[in-house]
């Protein structure tokens, strides 16, 4: 029997949801096993870094790398897996564009560590210990991986062949990618976003869409939305308009707004800026003819003031890959 090509999956700064998405292939996971040798996946298999170290370069045919680059260990594993993999795929939102971990780019490293280790209401840390790369102990120096001052994407630290968006990627899209490789089909050009569409979620969303004029914004708990009508037209901040399709518009289907996990559509560089472009131009200002310039401005400010956290909403998943990448200091 010919040797099967190897496949690997690694988690850096992530939640484990990407592995769950892979397991959600259900019986098809057996098809992966039939076609590939599952060489490395710390979440699901007892495989160690030294196993990877021992492999020749390029020995793993495909590596799905999920998780953002938060610390030195994440970076080291990214560099190792780049060397040992034929095709390295940024798998999921964290490795592609930073996702939730990258929201800490709105704060300094010191603020993040202070919140997590000192001010968190559920923490008990009377000695006020904050982790640091080196600690002197009677037995000698202890080392832990250094924490970076910002969250990076996989592409920021190594050469990446493809990315699969999503938080997490939809299983049927994971299967599309795996199946393409199994069938030996021609692979898309390097750098492509695969396992997704190229347009916006609105293209897949079956809700009725009419002219958009927003009178006021609602947060999801403030309104029971009409189940047929476009959520944005009802004043709910739905990110579908600035988010890549491919998920099947799952959230709008169940009356919840898209929060943007599939990232930017083809040709868009900044999801937050595009949301500003979309929402800022559909505000219903009513008749402005009799208003002074200041009064128009106040009317707009009143309308948009009900959204408390624009960066958190518009960059929930894509801050590390956005144009400005974080908060300037």
């Amino acid at each position, binding site marked *: 029997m010919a040797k099967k090509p190897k496949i690997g999956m690694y988690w850096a700064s992530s939640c484990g949801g990407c592995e769950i998405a892979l397991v959600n292939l259900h019986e098809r996971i057996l098809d992966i096993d039939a076609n590939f040798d599952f060489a490395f996946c710390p979440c699901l298999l007892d495989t160690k870094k030294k196993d990877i170290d021992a492999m020749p370069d390029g020995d793993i045919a495909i590596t799905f790398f999920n998780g953002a680059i938060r610390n030195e260990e994440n970076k080291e594993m990214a560099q190792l897996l780049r060397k040992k993999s034929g095709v390295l795929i940024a798998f999921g939102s964290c490795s592609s564009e930073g996702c939730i971990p990258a929201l800490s780019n709105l704060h300094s490293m010191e603020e993040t560590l202070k919140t997590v280790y000192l001010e968190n209401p559920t923490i008990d840390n009377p000695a006020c210990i904050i982790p640091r790369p080196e600690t002197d102990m009677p037995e000698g120096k202890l080392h832990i991986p250094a924490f970076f001052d910002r969250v990076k994407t996989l592409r920021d630290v190594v050469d990446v062949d493809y990315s699969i968006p999503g938080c997490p990627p939809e299983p049927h899209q994971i299967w599309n990618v795996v199946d393409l490789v199994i069938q030996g089909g021609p692979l898309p050009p390097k750098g492509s976003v695969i396992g997704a569409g190229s347009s916006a979620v609105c293209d897949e969303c079956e809700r009725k869409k009419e002219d958009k004029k927003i009178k006021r914004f609602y947060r999801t708990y403030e309104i029971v939305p009409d189940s047929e009508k476009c959520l944005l037209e009802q004043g709910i901040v739905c990110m579908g308009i600035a988010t890549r399709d491919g998920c099947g518009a799952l959230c709008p289907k169940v009356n919840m707004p898209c929060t943007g996990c599939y990232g930017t559509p083809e040709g868009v560089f900044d999801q937050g*800026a595009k949301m500003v472009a979309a*929402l800022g131009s559909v505000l219903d200002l009513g008749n402005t003819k009799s208003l002074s*310039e200041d009064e128009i401005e106040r009317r707009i400010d009143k309308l948009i003031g009900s959204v408390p956290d624009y960066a958190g909403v518009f960059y929930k998943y894509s801050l590390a890959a956005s144009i400005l990448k974080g*908060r300037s200091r």
Partner: protein
Amino acid sequence: MSGEFEPKIVGFLCNWCSYAGADKAGTAQSPYPPNVSIVKVMCSGRVDPQFVMAAFDKGADGVIMLACHPGDCHYTEGNLRALGRHRMLLRLLEQLGIEKERCVMDYVSAGESEKFVKVINDTVRAVRELGPFRPFSSHSGK
């Protein structure tokens, strides 16, 4: 070159009113600081917020958007759409560490060369006081 900080400012000016206003200031030989690089756009509504982000990322210390007065837009309400975006963008930029004085929107008609000069003067002065903008992407990254 003196050691004093000279702000780099990108100005997006609408073709129909503000660019003509700037032109008039030029024809009248009104002096104003040379810190603003002008980009002519057909309408202030054409200014994609991505342009503003890209300007800051590529080294601008400030951005100015100039539009027709409300009611005077060549395309009826492109300027109002630009205003809606600008007000929202200011909130987003604030969270990204960019002060509102660095991103200005105002109205300049084709006849208002004096107002054009005033907006440029005021913005250059305000940005000079704030100092250079250092985008997050230029931080050490460690």
